[in-house]
Structure formats: C-alpha cells, structure tokens
C-alpha cells in the first residue's frame, strides 16, 4: 500500500536487470510476458477495470449522485444488481464511477510521479552528475525521510482551501467555469502530492542505471562521435531505462490506488458527491451498515483488492521478464 515499499520492491526487482540490445530485449520481454498466463490474466483484469472506468458514463445504469429516497438500503434486485445505499443510490453505478476516479488519479499520478519526474530527474542526475546530481539526491533524501502519509494528510488539509481558491480565482479570470465544480482541484491536489512523495525511489533507480549506461562502450562511442547530450540521452539512454520505468509503473499503480482510498477515508481526498472507492469503503465499513448491508463494503472491497492483486501479480511477472536471474 505504500509508495516507498513498492518502490523498494521495484528496486529489488530491477537489481538483476542485465543490459542488452534494446530491440531484442523488448521483443523478448513482450513474448515472455505473453507466455505467462498469469500476467495475461492480470492484464485482462486491469484492462477491464480501466475500460469500465473510462467508459463510466456510458456503462453505468444510473448517475453517481442520482438518489431515490424511496429505495434506501434496498437489497440486490434486477434494476439494482448490488442494491442501493442509504440515499437510494445504485451501488453498481457508484462503483463504476469510483473506477473512473481511480483511473484518473492513478494515470495522472503515475505519469507525473513514476514516469516524468523520476525519468527526467534520474537521467539528468545520472548523466550530468556533479552539482545537479548532488542537489537532486539531497532533495530526494529529505523527501524520502519524511513520514509519507501524515505529510500527505497535512498538505492536503492545509493547502486544499488555497488551491481551491486559486483555481476559482483562475476561473473568474478566464471566464472558464467548471474546474472547481468538477472536482478538478481535488484530483489535482491528490496527484501532485502523491507525485511529490512518489518519485524518489524510481529516480534513484534510473539514476544508477544511467550511471552504468554512461560508462558503457556505445555511449562513450556516441559521445566520441560528437553526439549532443540531448541525442545521447534520448536515443541511447532512454530506451535502456524504459524497462525500469515499466517495472516502476506497475509497482506503483497499486500503491497509488491504495493511497487514494486512504486519503479519502481521512477526509482529504476526493470530495463528495463524486464517487470514489475511498468513499464507498468508508460508507460501507460503518459497523451497523456492514452488519446489515455487507454488499456495500463487499463490492468495492473485492474490486479494489482484485485490482491491487492484479497489479502486484503483474509486477512480479514483469520482474521475472526483465530480471531472468530471479526465475
């Protein structure tokens, strides 16, 4: 569930990663991955989840906030396969929209936190070395030594009002409405804060990989033949660190999904009436609700557990693919 832990798992996973020709490596890796049925199974689960999430408005039979007080706490029926909650909202639809929230948060966070930030910072630090390297390392070290979750809560609690106000101000300025009302501010804050704490582990991995690559013969050869820094970074180093990025991404997705739930439970995540698994799980886990209407907890719990389980298994599989030694 923690970002740090999964980063370190990815670290352990990537330890044995051997250098190789990128083309053949990719081809081989993909073929090996497909040969693992378990990985394919995971990919199917994950793909299904993301499809449902992205297509939520098309698939969901009802809106996420569409309530009907006459149907409060109804059990499963034909029109509501998983029953309704206290406000008479369709549990199935709420879960489908929650999937959309998870999709948005995971994609945004992973793009920023596990790809863009660590890739840029890691490659720059590893390739440039010197002062920049030291600076990035120290900042990373400090961020890594902070207690993650309490800091997330703290930042979200104190800064959200400011962010919301800033965005509202921005809206007034450009006469472009709907940002605050769509909950954009919440998503923005969650993923930027998660990214802030998530990049360190991966950046370190990429840095050390870049360091190794930098000394390799073909990079030296490319440099000797006068290739620009940009060119070296993009054509020689980037393709070779990509496998690491893939492993990082799969390792962190589950953790990010878990963090959203945690933050929402603590009241600093997605704001209602938007549906999210954090909100659904919190609602469903009240003792009395759980006692009388277990499906309200069960549905989101099973979906979330399956998703994280799939991510974890896929992470293991990718690990095997890129680190043949661990087999």
């Amino acid at each position, binding site marked *: 569930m*923690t970002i740090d832990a999964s980063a370190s798992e990815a670290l352990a996973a990537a330890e044995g990663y051997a250098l190789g020709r990128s083309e053949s490596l990719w081809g081989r890796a993909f073929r090996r991955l497909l040969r693992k049925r378990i990985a394919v199974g995971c990919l199917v689960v994950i793909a299904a989840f993301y499809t449902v999430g992205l297509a939520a408005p098309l698939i969901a039979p009802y809106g996420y906030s569409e309530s009907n007080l006459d149907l409060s706490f109804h059990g499963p029926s034909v029109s509501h396969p998983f029953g309704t909650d206290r406000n008479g909202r369709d549990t199935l639809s709420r879960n489908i929209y929650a999937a959309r929230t998870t999709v948005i948060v995971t994609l945004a966070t992973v793009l920023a936190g596990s790809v863009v930030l660590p890739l840029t910072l890691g490659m720059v630090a590893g390739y440039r070395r010197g002062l920049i390297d030291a600076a990035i390392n120290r900042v990373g070290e400090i961020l890594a030594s*902070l*207690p*993650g979750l309490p*800091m997330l809560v703290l930042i979200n609690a*104190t800064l959200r009002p400011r962010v919301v106000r800033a965005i509202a101000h921005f809206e007034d300025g450009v006469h472009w409405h709907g940002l605050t009302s769509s909950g954009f501010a919440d998503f923005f804050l969650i993923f930027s804060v998660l990214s802030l704490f998530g990049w360190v582990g991966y950046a370190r991995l990429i840095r050390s990989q870049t360091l190794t690559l930098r000394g390799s013969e073909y990079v030296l050869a490319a440099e000797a033949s006068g290739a620009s820094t940009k060119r070296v970074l993009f054509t020689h180093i980037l393709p070779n660190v990509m496998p690491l990025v893939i492993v990082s991404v799969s390792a962190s997705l589950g953790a990010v999904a878990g963090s959203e739930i945690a933050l929402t439970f603590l009241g600093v995540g997605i704001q209602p009436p938007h549906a999210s698994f954090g909100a659904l799980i919190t609602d469903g886990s009240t003792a009395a609700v*759980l006692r009388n209407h277990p499906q309200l907890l069960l549905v989101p*719990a099973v979906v979330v557990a399956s998703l994280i389980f799939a991510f974890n*298994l896929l992470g293991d599989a990718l690990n095997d693919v890129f680190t043949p030694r661990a087999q």
Partner: protein
Amino acid sequence: MDGLGGYVLRRLLFLPITLLIVSFATFYVTRWGPGDPISVYSGQYRDQEAFDRVRHKYGLDKPIVEQYGIWLKDVVLHGDFGVSFRFRDRSIPEIIGPKIWVSARLGLYAFILEFLIGIPVGVYAALKQGTWRDPFLISVFLFFQSIPVLVTVPILVLVFAEKLHWLPNGGFDGLFSKSMIIPTLAISLPGIAGIARLARVTTLETLREDFVRTARSKGLGEYTVVTRHVVRNSVVPVMTTVIGLSLVGLIEGAFFTETILGIPGIGRFTFESVNGRDYNVLLTIVLLITTLFVLANLAVDLVLAVVDPRIRINGGGK
C-alpha cells in the same frame, strides 16, 4: 572500515540539516494554510477580535518566519517544543510519550508476527518450489497484501467482535489484553506477504550456493541443512532490509488501525492533531518520524555492509 566510518559520519552530519529543512517546511506549510488552532477550539462562538487577542498571546500574529525563529531558539536552547494548543496544560513530550509507547508496542507485536509467519512461509515456499504449494502460499499472502487495511479492520471487527464475541471491538485496555489482537493482525497482514516473498527469493538463492550443496553432499539430513545453513543465511538479509521498509508500513497501518479502533497511539493522535491544527505537536511528530527513518535506513545500510561486504556503500545505488 575508514570508508564506512566516513559514510556514517556524513549521514549523521546530514541529519540535522535534514531536520532543519523538514522542520521549516512543515512549520511553513502548517501555518500558511488557512485556519488556526485558536479558531478551531473556540466552539460555536466566533469573535475574531477575541481570537486576535489570543493569537497575540501565543505569538501567532507574528510573521511565520519570525515564529519559526522563536520556535527554533526554544528547541535548541531549552529543548522546549512549544505548547500544544489542544492540551494546553501539558508539555509535548508528556502528551506524545505515552502514545508513542502504545504504538511502538503495537508495532513490535505486528513486527514479530510478520516474521513469525512470513519467514517460515517464505522458506517453506522456496523449498517446495515446483509444486503447487509454492505459488499457492505466495498468492494467498499476496492477496492479503492487496486488501486495504481499511477493509481488513471492519471485517475483523464484524467477525471476531460483533458476531463471535471473542474479541473486544476496539478500544484499548493495556497492551497485554485481547483488544490488541485485531490491530496486530490488521497491521501485520500486508507485511507478512512482503517478508514471505523476500524470504522465498533469498532462500532460493541460498539453496544454489556451494556450501548448501556441500552440506547436502556430506549427507546431512534435509532438516539440518535447512535450519543450520539455509535459514541462517537467508533470514539475516531479509531481517535487515525489511526493518527499514516495514517501518513505513507499520506507521501507515497504525495510522488507520488506530483511528478506526480507537487505540490511543501516535497514529490516531497525528490525525487528530492535523485536524486540530496543533502546530507544535505535529511538528514534533514529523521530526521524530523523520529521525527514525533516517536512523533506520542508516542502520539497514550498516548491517548490510557488515553482513555482506560485497555491497559497496558509496556505489550510488540505493
């Protein structure tokens, strides 16, 4: 050993700098956000002028940087971490001391449980590699790891407390009571899987080592080989790497478990302090955990360096 000594020294020297930066950042972020402890704890009476007078009393009307300077001076010169705005008649160590004690004990229970279950399972799975037992065990525990603590706790409570009445449904009445069982289980479940997987990998590696083969060829029984050679050689690295990692997991697990079950530990207290804008208490907690993390990481590095001289500490990696 000179390199190692220098390394430790550098890391230790860097600690105060880290704490300084962390304290300033935390100080600034908490006080910059809207809302302050005075307005949180004034109930339904909203008299901004009266608030201002109380703010003045506690120096909250000064610029943040100046407040930080005063706070830092008090900490460095007097070891005084400031007032708690929630519990105004107690000093901060007095407030958080017992809570840390509770959480630490809970963490220790969970930690022991993680090892007691995780390592045997991991070693067993490795020994049974190639049969159904290996993937079965590993996936069972991986599945447990995938269930958020927020789901585990209510289910455990429902089953063991509300239905079976075997265990209390939360609360806290001492560390040696039945009420510790549910939180310990909930906190350790995710960690068990991690440790089992790690123990499995290291055991597999150890099994391939020469000395194991030698021992086997000498005709030692399988049991002796496993206990004498394999476990000893695979458990130590697992212990050391995991201590650092587990710490994070335990702290975060405690955060939720304590909040849901009402255990008076530091996790629940941190959350309450965020909501109460109890600046100084929060700052102290953040600094404590930061120190703990830095020291734990350092200890892990050191133990690893001693156990396995092949690991070069300056090698940029970690």
